[in-house]
């Protein structure tokens, strides 16, 4: 590795700034995100990190851009453009590749309905966010693009007819060529190959082919033995675009055919094949790692897989309520409007979750009364879930696995995370009153603005013209003196992100815009050009819902505080 390669991204970007400038528009100077209406205070001259929140305070963004709307999960967007920079927390090198590891091809192995597509999308999302140039290659997508009608036989790993074999060969050739091009021509670092790969000879061929190009090959074999899980996967798969327009029953029958075609052909992986692989059983219930010598990235992916869970609930994002002077130093409390906002937010989120719970398992008597003395009337409480009722019932029974009673352990729990600021956690107070767990997470501390704290964009431009210029070229990686960049913030927030992945139920995150951007940017796979200018308003609650191929963001209006009427009155 050359000297050049060792430099972290931040520095590298500065050097390349000349070329970068051509790609990015210098932003409108007069437009800025302002989320407070209070008057403009004179900023203090002394550098410090207090962040008095003035009307025209710098917010890490040069333009107003609304949060991307539904169906715009960026996880399938191209990373192959010359100037692509991923949000990433890891150091990348001049070659555009990760500092620690070389090029890796992850090959998924498994019968249909073993969540291979979900896995490949999730790995792509996570590693891209880590700063790896990743792309997944879904054979099913290629097939769909090639022909409208595909005979059953073509879904078999070993077709019986000549045409079938020819068709299969053609699809595979195109996918393999694309993967080679991705590695060789577009600085790709991690490819994820989503196909059946159930024949041992096929796996050998892929391993040989890519190893000879100096690309490491790691297999992930997904197996399901749990009947309920298989059932759910089939249901999910039968909704895929292959069966668009087909009645549910027929789609299912079609899909079952695909499985039965391939079942007799399946050759499970074994350590004797001599390949590096991870066996992923029943959606992560068990993980086995064989011939582990790729170290870092493998460990990191395994860590991620340990925490990846099938999501049953949603992730919600909201801003905190308002305070009087919006002054950081005093760590202010909420004002009247802020309190009203908190109450409305609580009603909105609880109702929304209850609605979904009623749909899935009918109403159960509230269990929250067990947790703490709750003063709220019953109809405002969260409906307890099957899992939490069972957990209580089997507590201390040594024949049954015990579930810890802490946050998010139940597969359908609801938890609220807030930043460690008074008005942020006060915004969650009404949730607490209803017996819902609220946790302050120090990782949600907002982006440290360094010397430009309390300053408007105009002032920054006047006082630090060079810094301003650099920042406007790369607002994601640029670090003002003493400040954190978004990149730094992402590094610090990573543990939170994994915890978020692990929770199967609902989470509401109340935080500063900067931290919401990072989490939203991960879930919706935003590029780092988009991320610093995502805009979260107080009048919208954001709901992210999950599906195997992509995530969906929905904006839910929060009624204005003026419409608030206390239900006590």
């Amino acid at each position, binding site marked *: 590795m050359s000297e050049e390669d060792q430099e972290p991204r931040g520095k590298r970007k500065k050097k390349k700034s000349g070329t970068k400038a051509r790609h990015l528009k210098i932003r409108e100077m007069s437009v800025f995100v302002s989320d407070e209406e209070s008057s403009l205070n004179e900023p203090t001259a002394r*550098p410090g990190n207090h962040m008095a929140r003035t009307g025209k305070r710098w917010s890490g963004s040069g333009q107003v851009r609304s949060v991307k709307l539904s169906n715009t999960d960026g996880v399938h967007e191209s990373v192959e453009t010359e100037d692509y920079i991923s949000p990433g927390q890891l150091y990348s090198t001049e070659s555009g590749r990760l500092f620690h590891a070389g090029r890796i091809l992850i090959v998924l192995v498994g019968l249909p309905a073993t969540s291979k597509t979900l896995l490949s999308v999730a790995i792509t999302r996570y590693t891209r966010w880590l700063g790896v140039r990743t792309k997944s290659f879904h054979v099913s997508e290629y097939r769909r693009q090639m022909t409208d009608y595909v005979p059953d036989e073509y879904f078999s790993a070993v077709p019986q007819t000549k045409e079938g074999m020819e068709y299969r060969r053609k699809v595979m050739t195109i996918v393999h060529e694309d993967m080679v091009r991705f590695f060789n021509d577009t600085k790709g670092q991690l490819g994820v190959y989503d196909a059946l790969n159930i024949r041992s000879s096929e796996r050998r061929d892929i391993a040989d082919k890519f190893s000879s190009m100096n690309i490491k090959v790691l297999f992930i074999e997904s197996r399901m033995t749990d009947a309920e899980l298989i059932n759910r996967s089939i249901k999910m798969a039968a909704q895929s675009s292959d069966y668009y327009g087909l009645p549910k029953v027929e789609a299912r029958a079609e899909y079952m055919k695909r499985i039965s075609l391939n079942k007799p052909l399946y050759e499970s992986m074994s350590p004797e094949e001599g390949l590096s692989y991870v066996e992923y059983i029943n959606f992560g219930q*068990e993980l*086995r790692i064989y*011939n582990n010598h790729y170290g870092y990235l493998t460990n990191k992916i395994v860590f991620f897989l*340990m925490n990846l869970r099938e999501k049953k609930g949603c992730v919600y994002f909201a801003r905190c309520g308002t305070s009087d002077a919006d002054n950081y130093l005093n760590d202010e409390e909420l004002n009247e409007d802020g309190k009203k906002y908190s109450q409305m937010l609580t009603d909105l989120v609880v109702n929304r979750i209850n609605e979904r719970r009623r749909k899935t398992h009918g109403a159960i008597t509230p269990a929250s009364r067990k947790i703490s003395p709750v003063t709220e009337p019953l109809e405002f409480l969260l409906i307890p879930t099957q899992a939490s009722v069972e957990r209580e019932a089997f507590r201390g029974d*040594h024949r*049954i696995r015990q579930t810890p009673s802490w946050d998010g352990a139940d597969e359908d729990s609801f938890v609220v995370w807030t930043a460690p600021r008074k008005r942020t956690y006060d915004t969650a107070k009404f949730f607490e009153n209803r017996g819902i767990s609220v946790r302050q997470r120090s990782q949600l501390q907002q982006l440290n603005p360094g010397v430009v704290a309390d300053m408007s964009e105009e002032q920054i431009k006047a006082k630090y013209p060079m810094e301003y210029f650099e920042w406007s070229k790369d607002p994601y990686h640029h670090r003002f003196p*003493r400040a954190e960049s978004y990149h730094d913030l992402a590094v610090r927030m990573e543990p939170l992100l994994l915890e978020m992945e692990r929770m199967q139920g609902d989470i509401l995150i109340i935080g500063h815009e900067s931290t919401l951007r990072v989490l939203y940017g991960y879930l919706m796979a935003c590029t780092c050009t988009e991320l610093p200018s995502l805009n979260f308003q107080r009048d919208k609650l954001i709901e992210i819902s999950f599906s195997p191929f992509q995530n969906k963001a929905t904006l839910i209006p929060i009624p204005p505080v003026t419409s608030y009427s206390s239900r006590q009155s």
Partner: protein
Amino acid sequence: MVGLPARGKSFIAQKIVRYLSWLSIKAKCFNVGSYRRRAGSGHPNAEFFDFNNVQAFEIRQRAAEQAVTDMMKWYEEENGVVAIIDGTNTTRERRNWILKYCREHAIEPMFLESWSDDMDMILRNISDVKKSSPDYEGINPELATKDFLKRISKYEKVYQPLDHELDKNITYVKLINVAQEVIINRIQTYLESRVVFYVMNLHIRPRCIWLSRHGESVYNVEKKIGGDSWLSERGFRYSYKLPDLVKQSAGDADLTIWTSTLVRTQQTARELPYKQLHWKALDELDAGVCDGMTYEEIEEKYPGDFKARDENKYEYRYPGGESYRDVVIRLEPIIMELERQENILIVTHQAVLRCIYAYFMNVPQEESPWMSIPLHTLIKLEPKAYGTKVTRIRADVPAVSTYKEKGTSQVGESTQDGTKSRNILLNLPESSN
């Protein structure tokens, strides 16, 4: 823990405890062997560990019971979060007994098995055990090795490793030959996954870590805290001398330099002929509104804050700045990376060094913020299987002291003995210059 003797169980257990305690997660290790020794079996020979030796078996069973009872007491009375039962737990019967006991207390245990057939590693471990285990105190090393191998063979007769089928309903992790092969079953919490990830990153290859503060800065001379000032003239002298110091300590070994993003650490490292990485996470504790002030100014302007900080320095967060606890959280990825890496030299700041040093040397939170880490001194850490060896090398370039005693706004080492914590580093063995 599960596994035959000399499989690195205690090493892993202690590492986990240290890592979690450092992150303020209450963790404790209950070593069954030390309960057995306390019960009066101080220097048992291999025959003691024969599973047909009824009398000895009872003593060992009682030791395990005592350990588990103490563990539960610790959970209940001291709000413990992660307890580790460090014993061999080689039979399924023993493990089921632990499982039942835990579940009756609404705890789902995680079993961590270290399995190895790598004879080199086992012999290395045995030689470490001989040196450190009280069981073999004062016993001829050759005899000790022989006896220990015999002891292992007694365990081998009854050993039932965790099994794919039989144990499929319990949470377990099986490490085969360090982490060459890993089996992870039914992990159910984030904390468990974090521990597994940490263990997977541990390695036992020999390596060293060097720590240094930046050279004396202009702010150091002016007694100001924080800022992003340049080095003083003496600070630059240290930077010129550093390559020799490192060479003297590391020889021809290759290493990587990690600095913070602040000017003074980069200036300090600039003469070093190794590859360099700048980490934001290594920046000095952020003093918020007090940044750029002297301690005297802080005492005058924010007397309440000044006092509050002295009273609980670990938790105290400067207005708009950070506490030691905050620094530890942001250093966590650095520690994970350090465990994975080989030779590293870290040039960073006083508070950050205190936190990193506390991790390696297991310094408690009440003491770590009060450690004195002098300027112009290189500290060398050599992680060994059972603890870390520390030496320091002084550069012989004079510098101001930036150490502040509790209850005063004056900086400088007092002539008296001072607090115990202050001297943790000052009393280190010094390598010849």
